[in-house]
């Protein structure tokens, strides 16, 4: 035995003490060593073969070098049924790695589920470890990043596992709006487990290797007789383009983690922090000459709102959220003179940039995130109205459209709005209008703020009259320009598009000290 050999070479008078000391030290080392290899080399190899990194490799890539401080490496599961109490079924740290570290020097709490230990399944201990870091994250005010790779509940533990999920859900909810919470799905995430990511602020996925669903293809087949693959049911493509459950997908583990680092830099650490400001090399007074010609002369012609956004923000750097879902609205993070801002813009290229159910919900959730975390909101408006039709009405466009209206109205962060072209009807009101406490509302010379387009308006005002063309021309002259809004003070100024960046940067400096408080309430009742 190694212990006795070592003890033998030590002086006699300290033998007893040393034996005991060494044996503990060695047990510590042994446990630590065991914790580092999780479920063992075989399972690590299998994980790699699936094109996935291990829980620890992921943490290391996500955080600054040598910054990870691990918690609860010695925690083990407490299940004693089905042979789980045997030593070979105990893994120090159990099926999750938790702790805190730094991303570009800023504090973050991380949990990373370890698929090599019982398939990353959630035991009571596993949940307890996650809850511990979440509690501390909220206490010190730092974001939580979850790297999900778990087969689901630890079935051997039964209700204890379910209790664990609920404990996490509760913390997700109480931490919501206090610290940013981000989920990166890097493997399976099924059943009740999906609700933790769903409760967090952002859910990202890894293409081809991650899945999110309530029930898998087998159960689907037996209940609804649908034939569907895992990928079709809950793959990255499904959730980023069809369901809107996930906010973005990345090529592989490395790409996802590096992008997550990049994304993290946009976020404040908590709701008590101001929007972060990073060193900026892009002059704040830079003119953007290309914008003077970007809006086509014909109001029916499309252009790409992303061209405007890229031109205006720092270094053309725009982190788009949900780029493949409800593409008629563009949302995402950028910086202006180094300060993080949230950008919302109607996208004329897709469905004329109209508001429908999906785009309203997408926009509303984004606006609320920005408001919760002190991130100023810049809104680019080119909206012909809400999308008409039975599909939309039956789907509840009234209720869902109200969410976006609610979010913009409720927001107390600096709000700057630029009307680039159409701002028609109720959609004008919704899109961060002056009436919803917009701080600075601008119109480009191409702006048309009106109840509706000329043709429709004339058909109503001059119903049955001849000379519709003449009436239309009169209406265009009167309303298809920024003046009706400007003379009423509903826009603060009509600006040259090329000066937009300069104006926004200047306004943000002014608005940095903005204070606005909504009346006391337990919480508002957004039309869910």
């Amino acid at each position: 035995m190694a212990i006795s050999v070592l003890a033998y070479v030590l002086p006699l008078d300290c033998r007893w003490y040393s034996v005991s000391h060494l044996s503990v030290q060695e047990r510590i080392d042994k446990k630590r060593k065991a914790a580092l290899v999780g479920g063992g080399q075989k399972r690590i190899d299998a994980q790699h073969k699936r094109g996935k990194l291990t829980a620890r490799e992921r943490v290391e890539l996500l955080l600054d070098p040598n910054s990870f401080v691990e918690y609860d490496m010695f925690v083990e599961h407490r299940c004693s049924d089905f042979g789980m109490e045997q030593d070979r079924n105990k893994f120090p740290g159990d099926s999750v790695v938790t702790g805190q570290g730094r991303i570009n020097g800023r504090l973050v709490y991380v949990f990373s589920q370890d698929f090599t230990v019982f398939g990353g399944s959630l035991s009571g201990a596993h949940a307890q470890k996650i809850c511990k870091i979440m509690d501390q994250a909220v206490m010190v005010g730092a974001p939580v990043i979850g790297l999900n790779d778990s087969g689901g509940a630890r079935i051997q533990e039964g209700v204890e596992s379910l209790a664990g999920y609920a404990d996490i859900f509760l913390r997700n909810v109480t931490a919501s709006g206090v610290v940013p919470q981000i989920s990166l799905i890097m493997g399976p995430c099924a059943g009740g487990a999906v609700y933790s990511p769903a409760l967090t602020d952002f859910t990202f996925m890894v293409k081809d290797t991650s899945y999110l669903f309530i029930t898998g293809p087998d159960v689907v087949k037996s209940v609804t007789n649908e034939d569907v693959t895992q990928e079709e049911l809950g793959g990255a493509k499904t959730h980023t383009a069809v369901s809107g459950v996930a906010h973005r997908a990345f090529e592989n583990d490395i790409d996802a983690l590096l992008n997550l680092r990049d994304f993290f830099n946009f976020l404040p650490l908590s709701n008590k922090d101001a929007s972060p400001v990073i060193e900026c090399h892009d002059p704040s007074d830079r003119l953007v000459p290309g914008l003077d010609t970007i809006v086509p002369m014909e109001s029916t012609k499309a252009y790409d709102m992303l061209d405007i956004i890229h031109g205006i923000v720092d270094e053309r750097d725009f982190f788009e959220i949900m780029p493949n879902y409800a593409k008629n609205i563009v949302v995402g993070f950028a910086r202006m003179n180094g300060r993080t801002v949230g950008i919302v813009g109607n996208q004329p290229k897709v469905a004329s940039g109209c508001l429908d159910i999906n785009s309203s919900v997408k926009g509303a959730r984004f606006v609320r995130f920005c408001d919760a975390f002190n991130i100023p909101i810049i809104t680019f408006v080119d909206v012909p109205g809400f999308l008409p039709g039975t599909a939309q009405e039956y789907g509840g466009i009234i209720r869902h459209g109200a969410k976006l209206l609610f979010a913009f109205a409720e927001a107390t962060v600096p709000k700057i709005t630029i009307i680039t072209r159409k701002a028609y009807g109720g959609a004008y009101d919704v899109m961060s209008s002056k009436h919803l406490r917009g701080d600075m509302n601008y119109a480009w010379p191409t702006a048309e703020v009106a109840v509706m387009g000329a043709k429709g308006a004339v058909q109503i005002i001059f119903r049955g009259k001849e000379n519709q063309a003449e009436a239309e021309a009169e209406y265009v002259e009167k309303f298809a320009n920024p003046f009706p809004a400007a003379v009423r003070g509903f826009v603060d100024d009509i600006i040259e598009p090329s000066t937009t960046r300069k104006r926004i940067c200047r306004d943000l400096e002014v608005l940095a000290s903005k204070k606005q408080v909504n009346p006391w309430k337990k919480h508002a009742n957004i039309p869910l």
Partner: protein
Amino acid sequence: DFLDCQLTRTYQCRVIKTCRKMGIQTVAVHSDVDSSAVHVKMADEAVCVGPAPTGKSYLNMDAIMDAIRSTGAQAVHPGYGFLSENKEFAQRLAAEGVMFVGPDTHAIQAMGDKIQSKLIAKAAGVNTIPGFDGVVKTAEEAVKIAQDIGYPVMIKASAGGGGKGMRIAWNDEETREGFRFSSQEAASSFGDDRLLIEKFIDNPRHIEIQVLADKHGSALWLNERECSIQRRNQKVVEEAPSTFLDPATRRAMGEQAVQLAKAVQYSSAGTVEFLVDSQKNFYFLEMNTRLQVEHPITECITGLDLVQQMIRIAKGYPLQHKQEDIPINGWAIESRVYAEDPYKSFGLPSIGRLSQYQEPLNLSNVRVDSGIQEGSDISIYYDPMISKLVTYGATRAEALAKMEDALDNYVIRGVTHNIPLLREIITHPRFISGDITTNFLPEVYPSGFHGHQLATDSRRELLASAAALYIAAQLRSQRFLLSTIPQERGKWELCVELGKDRHNVEVTRSGNTYTVEVDAGRVEVSGEWNLASPLLPLTINGTHRMLQCLSREASGEITVQYLGTSFKVRVLSKLAAELDSYMPEKIPEDTSSILRSPMPGTVVAVAVKAGDTVAEGQEICVIEAMKMQNSMTAAKTAKVKSVHCKPGETVGEGDLLVELE
């Protein structure tokens, strides 16, 4: 005085500039897609003459005549292309009493017809190419003519200027194909479907003489321009003077050019094009009765403003200069910067919106004639030229060095452009030594253009620059104001991926200087590391180099333009690079069974239908873009599974055209 200009956008700007200097008010005409283009803003007035297709706007004579009447324009400068060499247009102007800035109808007619022009040239004592023949009506007639002349022969539209639509045939089959393409192109671009077939001279140099003639019978030759660097018979790089001509040959060519101008009572600026063989024998090719794209290089070495001279001549003033007053001062080079992908057949059109655009006007002795600006759209409707980039120097070496600098400083984002090719041409030893022919490109790049080929040193420089840029960006990512203190690391161990190769890199930093150990060598890179600027001025091992950062992704992917060519590298931390081997390989789409459009354009013809069996290399469909027809062929022998395009349809780059089984 009003002057109404209709021409390509680049050109209208050029004319308007001179008119302003001369105190002449200008009216620009434009199509509806060009309504916010630069020339429209520069001119005192602007008139829209129709929708985007040139036949409905810039070539629409009725609309242009209306524009002249409505604005009361007294003169028209037709520029190049479009209506500049259209005799009917000149006649209509004359009938309305509007001055045409250019030669009179007689000269346009005489020189506009390639067959007649050669007869006139011959009569005027100008050397002409042997074995040319007449108008061609059918493919079989074309074959017969070609056989009479002897292969190779060249086929082109009679009415077409420059090299557009020019095709070379080496056998009967190619003659038939060339006949078909050229006659279609002639009809669609010039509204005149006559063709010309003549003997093709192998390995020729294209050298042309600029002439200037007034209405009083005087004419001058303003020296030569060498335009041998061409792709598909279109000029790419031009220079004045030519490295090839001796004073005697220059004088002989100049005098013949003047003889020809006088023979047709030419008045205005014109160009007499010659083919010159290796023995300095020269043959008349054609005369262009307009101001050519490459005229600025002549202006550079002679000091004359050709647009001003044209306007003076049109007003009836006699020439100001004598032949002995015309100097050759220094050297000028012109690069045609095109919105096209040089990796496909030395340049296939690309379209897009110029998201960022900066001309290298910060440099001295650089002239950029362009008609676009940041935010401009490059559409499929017109010539894909972005600008004419001209550099000037006391010597050729100076002009070339300046061109290198100018190309490195030129920022173009949003469309694919040919700067990589231009920079390779002007730095190629054969070009530098003046050993060029019109076949330069296919000879130098027999398997097509593949961008700058890195040598050990330049690869190191590239890798080092990318690594340094990566670190500069990483460090900046830590510099939050009012919060954390950035952590400095002594040494960075990185892995830079270029193509399939990986290079381990060790970097130490001292201020803005990065010392990079890479590929068993040491590279010192310093710069200001402005991460917002598209230009990246660096000092690499003591040498100033202008790189450009085209993109920088969170994933570590960095695209930089280095020595003109854009290179994509991936910079990873050592750890990420190690773990990268576990990442699953993404299976790319099998492209041999699908045919995608290599560029945006219009489908002219579809030769197959679903179920047909096609042989490898067989024509499947024809795409027209920027007035050029491109034949799409099958990559393998297979059955056609489905056809996704039909004639008349507009397609984008990468759009699926045909699927094979």
